[in-house]
């Protein structure tokens, strides 16, 4: 071809586009006129002649389009045409379009979500300057380090710019009204300077503030806390507030982007670690054996490798070990990324997120495979159309481009829907606080990287499933197809696609079974006996320690608290315990038979939960007293030691046949205690635990600082909470109490089970979606491939069920194989679930029936439309057409 001519045609098209189009129209019109002239001469009327001429000419629009294409240089135009045509075709088959978009939206959404998490937790560094060179030091079994060891590391190392450290504590904050709790980082003086954090307002803490124990009562607020609790008031700098009843001065506010050096845990404020005694009541910061520091971190000096840092730290460790052999553990040093608290959380998070990534990738792959077979089915349906177009001179590339455009339309639509959904979910996740008491957050707000990856994945998967029918199109022989219709028979052999489908169905069945087991367990656990009655009960956490009370004043204060609350109208009973059951914490202790004299753990009769409770505890908690009595205020230091045991502990100590009341046993310290009552068994640490022994001791005989009031009342919880708060402020207006219903408090212990149920449910829905598209694609494909055969069968008198069997037998067989495999695996998998879910039992007939019904329903949905199509085969129409 002559380049000049090409360029000329290109330029004329480009610069005189509309003129070219008009020119083309004129030419085609002139052709029709000339033909009409001829026809008119042969004796037709002018109108009839023009009509005939137009018919003989054929599809004018199509030829115009093809001419356009021949002119070249119309990439954009062709693409627009393709898009318009593709959208029209897709609109014509809404079922296919919906299934395809939904599948892809799901897959892309899942991937964007997982990538968002991966991006936020692992790829994105901490929001501090030069986060690349920031490392944490890991030493000791749980990452903690002692403060004196930190000081030695800080002063003796030669590989870090500066080593800073912090620990986490909860304090009571009193600003004059509304005392509350706040989470702090207790930081070393060089913390902000080591990280390079400049104040947003006022100043930050510096090393020069530290002059020994309790020397620097100052506070740096986090921006978020300043915003929410001080309403962005700049005059707070310089104000004095009370922390745990000690005056502290607010000196500054950190910038909004700095949220501490742990991704999960954003503090409300920063206070100097030298004030540790004031803030925590523990005066042992300087004890080398006591691990008071949560994490040590700092920037490596330029050019220093992590290996050099480790060897530097190891030599300091050797020195410490030699100098303080009794107090320093011989554990190797590691340097780690500080954001996820090194390997303790980081390794778990990494494993979890990697697992999720693999899962999401598999979902995407399976979706692509399913969409590929859907597209193959469509391509087979359109074999005639494609063959005609080929016969009329259309190029295969042009046709493939059209099919590809359709795939791209689907992938972009699905990708956008998926991305939008995942953005919404990520935003939700970012503000979600699974445990109201702790400032635990999952900071995963999406950024441009997430958008980019999602769209990229959408396009790549569009290409992947768009490519599946390519071979098919290239194989089409237009003459054969137009003459005889598509005749390729569906193969009988097992293809890779079949196996993939069976695997998908099996996984789906596993997920469906497991999520049903989980839901059943959740429902059952909500209705099981806890050994107490959480309904109509409030839990009041009274942190007496934070309000400056000491062990001397706490017992009398507790008594006063109860007397005070009892005066509120509507209170049926109120009691104090040092720990409510099912509160994610448990104190355990060995108990011994009275006859045991050698009180070694090996000789214990039982290891029991211990609760120190006030009189009327069993009444307030709703725990049934089976025999004997509860405690009274007379069970004090001067009275004989008494105890209440649960049925389990009674059986362990005294055997099941005897009446345990008035019997005596020994506590861990050798004190003899007399059983005065027996209560029902219950749940103490979590819902899935085996039945455990429990021991209740009177608060006056074994005093405890932690003070949880349990209050039973039929009044509206909100009103009641206000009344309690008012009453407590009468007694002490600096008490930062928290009041929740007991059911709300139990959400913490239900959390793992809820999460397991939720994630299994989500995965189950995803699996079901994938299986549906997979079966749908395969059934649709086999029906359209065999439409002619089915037509002949119908013409020869086949009955409906025979037609169905011929059309869908294969799909249904695959479904059955996959489901059975999945159910068996699901039953095995529930053993694993039993550790999270209460009484997870696969032999639950309801679960089995539910899973079978679910799989059958899924099959029905997936094969419904192909089956309708097979049944509505019109043999005459079909045979005539082909």
């Amino acid at each position: 071809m002559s380049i000049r001519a090409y360029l000329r045609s290109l330029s004329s098209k480009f610069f005189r586009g509309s003129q070219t189009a008009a020119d083309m129209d004129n030419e085609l019109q002139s052709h029709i006129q000339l033909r009409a002239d001829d026809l008119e001469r042969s004796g037709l009327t002018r109108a009839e002649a023009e009509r005939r001429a137009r018919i003989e000419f054929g599809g004018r629009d199509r030829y115009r389009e093809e001419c356009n294409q021949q002119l070249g240089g119309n990439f954009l135009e062709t693409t627009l045409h393709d898009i318009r045509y593709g959208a029209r075709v897709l609109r014509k088959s809404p079922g296919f379009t919906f299934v395809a978009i939904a599948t892809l939206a799901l897959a892309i959404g899942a991937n964007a979500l997982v990538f968002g998490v991966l991006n936020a937790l692992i790829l994105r560094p901490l929001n501090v300057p030069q986060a690349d060179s920031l490392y944490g030091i890991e030493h000791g079994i749980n990452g903690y380090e002692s403060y004196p060891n930190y000081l030695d590391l800080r002063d003796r190392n030669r590989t870090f710019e500066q080593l800073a450290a912090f620990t986490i504590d909860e304090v009571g904050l009193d600003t004059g009204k509304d005392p509350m709790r706040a989470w702090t980082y207790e930081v070393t003086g060089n913390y902000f300077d080591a990280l390079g954090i400049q104040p947003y307002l006022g100043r930050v803490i510096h090393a020069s503030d530290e002059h020994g124990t309790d020397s620097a009562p100052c506070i740096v607020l986090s921006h978020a806390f300043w915003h929410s609790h001080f309403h962005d008031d700049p005059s707070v700098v310089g104000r004095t507030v009370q922390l745990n009843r000690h005056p502290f001065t607010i000196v500054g506010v950190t910038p909004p982007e700095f949220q501490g050096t742990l991704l999960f845990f954003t503090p409300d404020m920063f206070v100097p670690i030298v004030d540790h005694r004031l803030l925590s009541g523990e005066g042992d910061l300087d004890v080398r054996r006591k691990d008071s520091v949560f994490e040590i971190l700092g920037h490596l000096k330029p050019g220093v490798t992590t290996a050099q840092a480790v060897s530097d730290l190891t030599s300091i460790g050797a020195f410490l070990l030699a100098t303080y052999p009794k107090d320093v553990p011989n554990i190797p040093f590691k340097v780690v990324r500080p954001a996820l608290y090194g390997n303790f959380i980081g390794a778990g998070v990494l494993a979890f997120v990697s697992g999720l990534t693999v899962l999401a990738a598999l979902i995407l792959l399976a979706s692509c495979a399913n969409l590929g077979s859907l597209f193959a089915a469509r391509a087979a349906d359109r074999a005639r159309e494609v063959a005609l177009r080929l016969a009329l001179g259309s190029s295969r590339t042009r046709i493939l481009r059209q099919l590809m455009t359709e795939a791209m339309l689907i992938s972009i639509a699905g990708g956008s829907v998926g991305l939008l959904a995942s953005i919404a979910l990520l935003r939700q996740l970012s503000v979600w606080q699974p445990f109201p008491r702790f400032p635990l957050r999952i900071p995963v707000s999406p950024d441009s990287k997430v958008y980019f990856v999602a769209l990229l994945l959408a396009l790549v998967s569009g290409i992947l499933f768009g490519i599946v029918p390519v071979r098919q199109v290239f194989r089409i022989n237009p003459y054969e197809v137009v003459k005889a219709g598509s005749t390729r028979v569906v193969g009988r052999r097992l293809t890779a696609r079949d196996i993939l489908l069976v695997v998908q169905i099996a996984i789906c069945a596993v997920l469906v079974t497991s999520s049903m087991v989980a839901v059943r367990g959740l429902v059952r656990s909500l209705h099981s006996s806890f050994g107490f009655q959480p309904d109509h009960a409030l839990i009041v956490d009274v942190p007496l320690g934070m309000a400056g009370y000491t062990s001397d004043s706490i017992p009398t204060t507790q008594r006063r608290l109860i007397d005070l609350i009892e005066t509120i109208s509507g209170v049926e009973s109120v009691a104090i315990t040092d720990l409510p059951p099912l509160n994610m914490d448990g104190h355990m202790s060995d108990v011994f038979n009275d006859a045991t004299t050698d009180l070694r753990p090996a000789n214990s009769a039982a290891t029991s939960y211990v609760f120190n409770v006030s009189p009327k505890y069993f009444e307030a908690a709703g725990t049934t007293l089976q025999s004997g009595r509860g405690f009274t205020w007379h069970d004090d230091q001067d009275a004989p030691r008494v105890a209440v045991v649960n049925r389990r502990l009674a059986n362990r100590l005294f055997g099941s046949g005897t009446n345990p009341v008035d019997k005596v046993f020994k506590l861990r310290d050798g004190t003899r205690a007399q059983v005065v009552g027996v209560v029902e068994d219950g749940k103490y640490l979590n819902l899935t635990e085996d039945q455990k022994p429990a021991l209740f001791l009177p608060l006056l005989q074994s005093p405890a600082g932690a003070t949880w009031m349990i209050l039973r009342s039929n009044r509206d919880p909100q009103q009641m909470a206000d009344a309690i708060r008012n009453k407590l402020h009468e007694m002490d207006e600096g008490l930062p109490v928290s009041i929740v219903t007991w059911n709300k408090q139990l959400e913490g212990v239900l959390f793992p089970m809820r999460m397991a149920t939720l994630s299994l449910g989500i995965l189950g829905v995803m699996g079901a979606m994938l299986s549906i598209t997979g079966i749908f694609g395969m059934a649709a494909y086999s029906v359209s491939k065999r439409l002619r055969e089915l037509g002949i069968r119908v013409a020869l008198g086949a009955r409906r069920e025979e037609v169905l069997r011929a059309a869908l037998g294969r799909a249904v067989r695959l479904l059955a194989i996959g489901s059975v495999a999945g159910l068996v695996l699901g039953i095995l998998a529930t053993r694993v679930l039993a550790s999270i879910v209460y009484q997870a039992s696969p032999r639950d007939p309801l679960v089995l029936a539910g899973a079978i019904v679910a799989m059958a329903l899924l099959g029905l949905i997936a094969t419904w439309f192909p089956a309708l199509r097979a049944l509505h085969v019109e043999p005459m129409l079909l045979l005539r057409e082909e």
Partner: protein
Amino acid sequence: MNDQAQLLPGTLDLLILRAVSLGPLHGYGILLRIGQISGNALLIEQGALYPGLFRLVRQGLLKASWGTSENNRRAKFYELTAAGRKRLQQETDNWNRLANAIGAALTAQPEEV
């Protein structure tokens, strides 16, 4: 109609070049000419001609200009360029070789094998 043969792919261009080589023609004229020189034995849908014409123009084998037809209608006339004439010669030779070979193959007698 049943006597007419399907066009082999790629042969339309050759026919157009041949038709135009006998003198400038408009599109409809080309169709008539092809019918005339092939004894009406070939089936061509009328509109299908035009993408072919545009292709040949783009390849520089034909050039087009507007003129007036014998019955006074405006029409676009096509004529061969030098490149077109050369191409026609090549394609004709190719076709003849192919036709001879196929013809020989189809008429071969058992004793010649």
